[in-house]
């Protein structure tokens, strides 16, 4: 296993003066390539904050952030956008898909936005991923008509589209019933084993966390376990 990413002395505060909240207080975390890790902690402990910083969607107040040997703390918006596109996949809890597009169009988005159009090769990969997620019957479905579990599987397929090194999932099963949640987690585990994609998954669910090989617990703005 090789080092994939590292954050050191990560501090994140929101607001200023009286209203200042210090969410992260010098957090340290390193991840290796191929890990399947759960991010645990009470509500408001800063799990989503960590994921958005690792996902380069937000800058930390202070501290360093490196991934794939690159310093991301000082990179420009344009550079981070490209970095995200190539190396990071996201699965969110709500508002995950573009509702006016089909499942396949959603999955192809990360490649199409980079290449300027939906190529045949991209469509082929998108279809393969959807088949793999058990959605062969739903490839050309408008995503608005999909069930919650199906939507999350489309989102996982999309996160994998550009073969990123890291997939960040913020409570991907938070909205799903037990059976659907387990199905999504099984697929994530399978991709992790077969492709070596690194996953960091925030969750409140102990059973979901138990499916991951590593558990990272945050509390008080630090990694506590």
């Amino acid at each position, binding site marked *: 296993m090789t080092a994939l990413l590292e954050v050191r002395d990560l501090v994140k505060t929101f607001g200023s003066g009286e209203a200042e909240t210090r969410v992260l207080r010098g957090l340290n975390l390193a991840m290796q390539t191929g890990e399947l890790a759960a991010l645990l902690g009470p509500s408001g402990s800063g799990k989503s904050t960590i994921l958005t910083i690792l996902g380069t969607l937000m800058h930390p107040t202070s501290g360093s952030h490196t991934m794939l040997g690159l310093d991301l703390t000082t990179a420009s918006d344009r550079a981070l956008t490209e970095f995200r596109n*190539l190396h990071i996949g996201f699965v969110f809890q709500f508002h995950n898909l*573009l*509702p*006016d*597009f089909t499942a396949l169009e959603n999955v192809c988005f990360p490649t199409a*936005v980079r290449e300027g*159009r939906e190529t045949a090769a991209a469509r082929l990969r998108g279809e393969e991923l959807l088949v793999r997620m058990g959605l062969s019957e739903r490839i050309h479905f408008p995503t608005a008509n999909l069930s919650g579990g199906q939507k999350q599987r489309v989102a996982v397929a999309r996160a994998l589209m550009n073969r990123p090194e890291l997939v960040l999932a913020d409570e991907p099963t938070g909205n799903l019933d037990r059976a659907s949640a387990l199905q999504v987690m099984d697929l994530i585990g399978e991709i992790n084993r077969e492709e070596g994609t690194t996953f960091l998954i925030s969750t409140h669910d102990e059973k979901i966390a138990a499916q991951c090989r590593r558990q990272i617990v945050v509390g008080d703005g630090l990694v506590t376990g």
Partner: protein
Amino acid sequence: MLYALKIATRYLTASRAQTALLVFGVAIGVFIFIFMSALIGGLAEFIMMRTAGDMAHITIQAEAVDPALLNPAALGTVLLVQEPSTKATAILKDTSAFIPLIEGLPGVKGISQQINGTGFLTRGGQVTQVSINGLEPGHESVIANLASYVTEGTANLGAGGVLLGKTLVEDMDLTLGQTVRLQSSSGVVAVLTITGIYEMGSGGPDRRQAYVSLATARTLFKLPQGVTRVEIKLDDLYAADALAPQIKALTGLDAKSWTEQAAQLLDALKAQAQTGYILKAFALLTIVIGVASALLLSTYRRRPEIGIMRAMGAGRWFVMVVFVAQGALIGLMGGLFGAAAGYGVLLAFPSRDSFGPGQSGLPIDIRQGAYGLAIWLTTLGAILASILPARAAARLDPVTAIGQ
């Protein structure tokens, strides 16, 4: 770019009713723009035809010259007695020298040589002062279309004939074929037969103008040769300002464009055009505001999606193009529909060729609809209108936009 356009098109087709309503609103603005263009343009043409249509486009008027002194002043004091008739010596002598030159110029439609002056028309005990217009037989309708205004008799001016206005005829209780006495300001009297009666519809000429043949005018004003005025009609009346100096340079005569005398008319037309511009500007402004507010609403509604796209690696520029393209498409569609509707409605109005005198209704000129300009300006306006919402969308913070 192509992919951003695909997303933009999908956004527009996804909320079909809203897009249709927006395009409809834009089309109405475009329709007003086109209707105003056709109306203002047609109105200007109509006014021109009714006024400038009957006037000379370029006039060469003989300047009043002082009689030459036979005895140079250097030899002593000269006592000069000037008769009232000396005005008539203000003539353009060598017409055969310069008329062919002017005729040869491109854009010249017709030339009318005239001898003009004043006189008194007498019938029985009644006397009326009139302007006398001596025209070449066969050239009566070169400037004002006299033939079209004749209500009785003929516009052809023969020797011994006179053409009088309807008001004058009625005031003096005259009829076609009667004889009248015409005494010029030079004191010459001619007895003439009324061979035609005309009605231009405007008071002045109908009451005051007497048309005679050039030969009759020569006798009346004692001008065996030359004329007092040359009037020129052009194919395009707006070419007069360019052509007048050319004629001046060519002949050395003081050729004046109609625009020098028609400043008021031009001012009125300009004011009318400006009113049109203001109305059209408001139509465009409505389009811009409508598109801007609709897109602003759309960016707000699609905030989470914008955040998702940004997280997936869509740059700010991409988001910007998605929304500007929506504006452009709305503008283009609204422009096309509005222009088509405008053309269709304008077709229902009487054609421009039937504008002539005595016509009622709006003098709309379908050819002045400015369709291309309307479509182009609308698309441009819609693009400009979309820039603000598009910028707001592009600058959204992805984290707050996703709102997890």
